[in-house]
């Protein structure tokens, strides 16, 4: 898929180098490309040794793969970041208020701002969460908002990722790698720290512990196990926070609490940071075939004995059909206009809109409302006539199942290639932590980059890589 329009380059503008990149550019011009080439290989060896890998299902010869890392940082000025983080803060607060409202008084539905059908027929809406407020009133303890940029001042939210966003370990390890490879850069250019994230994550999780638990809450990370594609991240975060990494079979209900087996017997848990999906969380409540979860955890949760982060049922807020209502949702709960833009979204459930979408399929991206990870979607500009015709039939059969968006011309940041710097499209996933004490956003995030020339697909499964993301000090 290629961008139709002229795209925004974050490093170079017509008049030369954009100011956030000027110090970096001055350094880069003095570098020997053979040395950078060697550095690039060193970085790969570092990632391998540290085990920063992801598992690919069904490929035994290459069980663990590396996500390619590019050594040119993506740089944001403090001003750009301040605006972005205000927008994220606002959006994250609205999402939490929205979730609380949906599972309690449902005022937003009564006010007719969000249609009730969108909630009533939504699998991600969990009846088990109705009339219940999680400890501290927090639903989305960790949010990873996907943001794309199309111009100097044009930032769009692509997805809200309110379930269990991943990728933060890459943000941290990319920075470590850059510090190891180019210490001289960091003494010249003042970059805001990301390394406090694990400490802040732990503090944030502890602050949402259920009332009446011990004064030092006991936190664990729940992983589906070593075969999960994000296992590295689960173990990394547990290790960095200094908390136990556990699997479902390590946990059980003991004396009315969820407890983990240890070398000294069972120990009661206060907070579970779970990296297991809602469906698999509790075989007694959800998918009864699940071996990854903990039988009875939902009962304990509703009894106020444990905190689950993120709360079950948050998926209803990052649903693609709900997405189109986000500007209204933000305004409904915060009383302010949304700071971050939404990508224009056509709801195919509306007959007029469906007609427009069908007529313009070649220029649009059409997504399944409940889908994720790029499955079941049509990328108009990259699709063949046959593919478009086939998709049109699906669309006509179940219009309410789809939304359509224009193809965005994502901004570019240069990557290091054999032929020197070359522009590639990027997105950004900053990470926000929510606790009763407020929203804490780590300055930076994960920049994903489409390594193939012209490609707009940044997913690691389709040739995407990552970059270190710098937010300059003010």
């Amino acid at each position, binding site marked *: 898929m290629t961008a139709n329009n002229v795209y925004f380059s974050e490093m170079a503008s017509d008049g030369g180098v954009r100011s956030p990149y000027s110090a970096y550019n001055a350094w880069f011009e003095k570098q020997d490309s053979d040395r950078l080439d060697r550095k690039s290989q060193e970085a790969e060896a570092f990632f*391998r*040794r*540290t*085990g920063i890998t992801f598992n690919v299902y069904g490929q035994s010869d290459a069980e663990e793969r590396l996500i390619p890392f590019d050594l040119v940082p993506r740089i944001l000025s403090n001003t750009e970041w301040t605006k972005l983080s205000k927008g994220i803060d606002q959006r994250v607060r609205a999402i939490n208020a929205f979730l609380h409202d949906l599972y309690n008084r449902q005022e937003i539905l009564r006010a007719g701002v969000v249609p009730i059908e969108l909630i009533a027929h939504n699998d991600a809406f969990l009846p088990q969460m109705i009339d219940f407020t999680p400890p501290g009133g927090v639903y989305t303890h960790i949010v990873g908002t996907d943001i794309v940029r199309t111009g100097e001042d044009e930032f769009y939210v692509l997805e809200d990722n309110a379930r269990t966003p991943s990728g933060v370990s890459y943000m941290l390890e990319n920075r470590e790698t850059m510090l190891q490879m180019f210490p001289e850069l960091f003494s010249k250019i003042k970059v805001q720290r990301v390394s406090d994230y694990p400490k802040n994550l732990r503090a944030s999780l502890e602050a949402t512990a259920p009332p009446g638990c011990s004064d030092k809450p006991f936190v664990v990370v729940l992983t589906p196990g*070593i075969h999960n594609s994000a*296992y590295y991240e689960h*173990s*990394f975060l*547990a*290790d960095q926070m200094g*908390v*136990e*990494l556990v699997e479902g079979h390590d946990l059980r209900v003991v004396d009315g609490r969820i407890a983990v*087996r*240890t*070398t*000294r*017997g069972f120990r009661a848990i206060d907070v579970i940071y779970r990296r297991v999906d809602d469906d698999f969380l509790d075989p007694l409540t959800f998918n009864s075939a699940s071996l990854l979860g903990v039988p009875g955890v939902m009962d304990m949760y509703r009894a106020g004995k444990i905190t689950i982060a993120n709360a079950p049922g948050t998926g209803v807020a990052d649903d693609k059909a709900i997405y189109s209502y986000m500007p209204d949702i933000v305004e409904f709960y915060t009383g302010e206009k949304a700071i971050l833009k939404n990508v224009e979204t056509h709801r195919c459930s509306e007959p007029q809109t469906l007609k427009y979408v069908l007529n313009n399929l070649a220029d649009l991206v059409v997504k399944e409302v409940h889908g994720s990870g790029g499955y079941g979607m049509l990328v108009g500009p990259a699709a063949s006539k046959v593919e478009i015709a086939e998709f049109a039939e699906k669309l006509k059969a179940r219009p309410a199942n789809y939304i359509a968006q224009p193809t965005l011309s994502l901004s570019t940041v240069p990557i290091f290639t054999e032929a020197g710097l070359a522009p590639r499209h990027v997105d950004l996933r900053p990470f926000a932590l929510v606790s009763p004490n407020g929203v804490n956003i780590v300055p930076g995030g994960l920049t994903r980059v489409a390594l193939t020339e012209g490609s707009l697909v940044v997913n690691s499964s389709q040739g995407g890589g990552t970059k270190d993301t710098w937010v300059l000090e003010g």
Partner: protein
Amino acid sequence: MFRFLERAENTARLIEAGFRIALTRSSDPESEWKSVIVTSAAEAAYGAKHDVFDSTRITDFLLRDPENPSSVLSVIKAARDNARLVRTALTSEVWSAVNETWMLLTDVLKDKVPETDLPQVLATIRHQSALVRGALHGTMLRNDIYDFCRLGTFIERADSTARIIDVKYYALLPAPSFVGSRMDNVQWETILRSVSAHRSFRWAVDGDYTPANIARFLILDRRLPRSLAFCAASLTENLNYLAEEYGMRHPSNDMAEALKACVSGRTIDSIFDEGLHEFLSAVLRDTANLGLQIEQDFRFNK
């Protein structure tokens, strides 16, 4: 995990001793190689695949054979899988040392190792074990996790040393017809080299090569870090730390004390009177039982 790492190192050491003896000393290299296989407790598995005992087949079986669960390649993979599973129990330095060891050895052992490269490959295995051990000692908190790492190491080491002596026990028996006639017995050298004690024996025992001295050194001398006495004392010590930290003693504490009593504070003659082979069989059995008891006491299987 540390049992696996210790086993990889012990196997490398055994091959090194076998290789050296076969090259320099023996008129009957096949029997030397055979005793290497017996010592690694791999006789049955090896016998199922091969009927000749030669250096190429044996080194390949011990280093690379995926069907041999104790081959260096198998145990390094197991150690790394294990480390990944308990990643948060290890410091990042220990973890990356284990991961790097696995990457490096998987690469080095990808193809059959030609005789010309064998010394280098064996040295790499030893270096990598030293790296992991160094990271462990230098960076880990001295808490229960560290104690468990050490317990694994010493259970495996006690087992290995007892086996090494047992396979050659006849060479250590004070039978007047055999021993004493030659100052320098090939078997003795094999035994000492297998536990990397060839040099330290000369220093510690003043190079007085008699069966009683060698047996005493390997069994009763606490200065030798691979002796049974050292292993038993370390097991007792680490279990005592655990008892202190957990505020209670377990049955494994008493079992370790008993094992320690059996390999210290006595003369080598009393062991010979008991019967060296019988004594070693008892040590092997008690070590295995102690391992099982530790798993039970600390709920590793619940």
